[in-house]
């Protein structure tokens, strides 16, 4: 390759490299909950999903049914009074907010907020089915 050609390509190659680094970093930037989960991965974790308008038991059980299918889910509880679905995952389960939102969407609803906590958190429900 001639020197003139290298001069032409070098800015493009530099931009490409910077782009690749950014793309590689995106998942960690977009997924703080995933990082938090990995930190508490030893004991499992729990997602508390708020779903608006959750008054119909058939719909609530539908959300439960779809959330149970997520990889690593050990338990799903529905709290109609609080319009919440509480999903527990085994240690090391790698589930994102998007997956949770997708499961709720499949059940015909929209997830409002999602809060994560470790199964070791004193506020957490028991993470395994008794």
């Amino acid at each position, binding site marked *: 390759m001639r020197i003139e050609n290298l001069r032409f390509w070098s800015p493009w190659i530099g931009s490409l490299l910077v782009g690749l680094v950014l793309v590689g970093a995106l998942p960690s930037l977009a997924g703080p909950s995933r990082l938090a989960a990995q930190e508490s991965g030893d004991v499992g974790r729990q997602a508390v999903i708020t779903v608006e308008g959750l*008054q*119909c038991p*058939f*719909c609530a*059980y*539908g959300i439960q*049914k779809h959330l149970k299918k997520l990889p690593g889910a050990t338990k799903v509880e529905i709290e*109609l*009074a609080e*319009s919440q679905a509480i999903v527990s995952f085994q240690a090391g389960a790698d589930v994102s907010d998007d997956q949770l939102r997708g499961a709720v969407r499949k059940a015909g609803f929209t997830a409002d907020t999602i809060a994560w906590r470790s199964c070791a958190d004193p506020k957490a429900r028991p993470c395994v089915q008794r």
Partner: protein
Amino acid sequence: MPRCSWAICVRLLVLLFVLAAVVAVARWGTRWSVPHAAATDAAYTLLFTWDGATAPGGSFDRPIGVAVAPSGDVYVTDARQRVVHLTPSGEVLGEWGREGEGFGEFSNPIGLAIGPDGAVYVSDYEQDRVQKFTAAGGFLTAFGGSGSGPGEFNGPAGLAVDEAGSIYVTDFYNHRVQRFRADGSFDGVIGQPGRVGAGALHYPTGVAITTDRVVIVADAYNYQVQWFDPRGVPLRRAGYHLLWIWPWPVTSTAGFSVPTDAAVGPNNAIHVADSGNRRVVMLSSEGAYLTEWRVPDADPAVYSPEHLAVSRDGTMVYATDLGRDRLLVLRATMPRD
């Protein structure tokens, strides 16, 4: 006399067109709002609330399914993954079921129906199957499976069995009702997914069969009740209100808000669980409003009642109240002819 300018004339024409369209939609939409029967003495009276406290596994925990046997015995499913068997007076005779995927085990038993021979059918919302038991809880057979093909379910909810022994299952997430022969083999589909048009179903949750095999479907999220003939041809509907093109729950007596079940008595009077309005509505066999009864002290966070059952003589109606962990026992007074 001032002359009509071009711009004003066009605006007037558009306004007239819009008005005509609104009137046309309103007239068409009200065709299947719930008509009112002439004043009658039909009524509901609350007789008892049962909490199942003497059941071996503990009192009712979010009861959702109910059925009445030809003998008058009452069966209830709840979140303890079981079927509770009660006498007509509410004494607990026994229970069966536990968490699991084997025969006689459940993950979420929701629907209940009794066959003409007294067999008990239970739908499992999570396991996408229906199990058949003897009246005392002995396992007989099971059918179904997850999917959207013939004979498969995605959230089997309400059940009904006709006099010939055919089983009808509302398939919640597949937006249809499926019929099975007494041996559990697939026999056909009633309704199709949709929001608009006769026969379109949107998250159906309950089903009932009249003595002449007319199928009545609680089409919960189309906010209506639909009638089909035994071949599945749509006959009639009630509850869809004025804005048919944008269905919305109705709180007046002219419509429903998430009707989750229907039950039919021997005189073909229809009882509807209008759960979003927390009431039971009685309709004539033609679908005309007769009377209603509101659930007392209903949990504001939970629609109620979920499912209904009616005694063989038509005088008693049983309604599950999941939010309050109880079964409501009503006396139904039929209108005099």
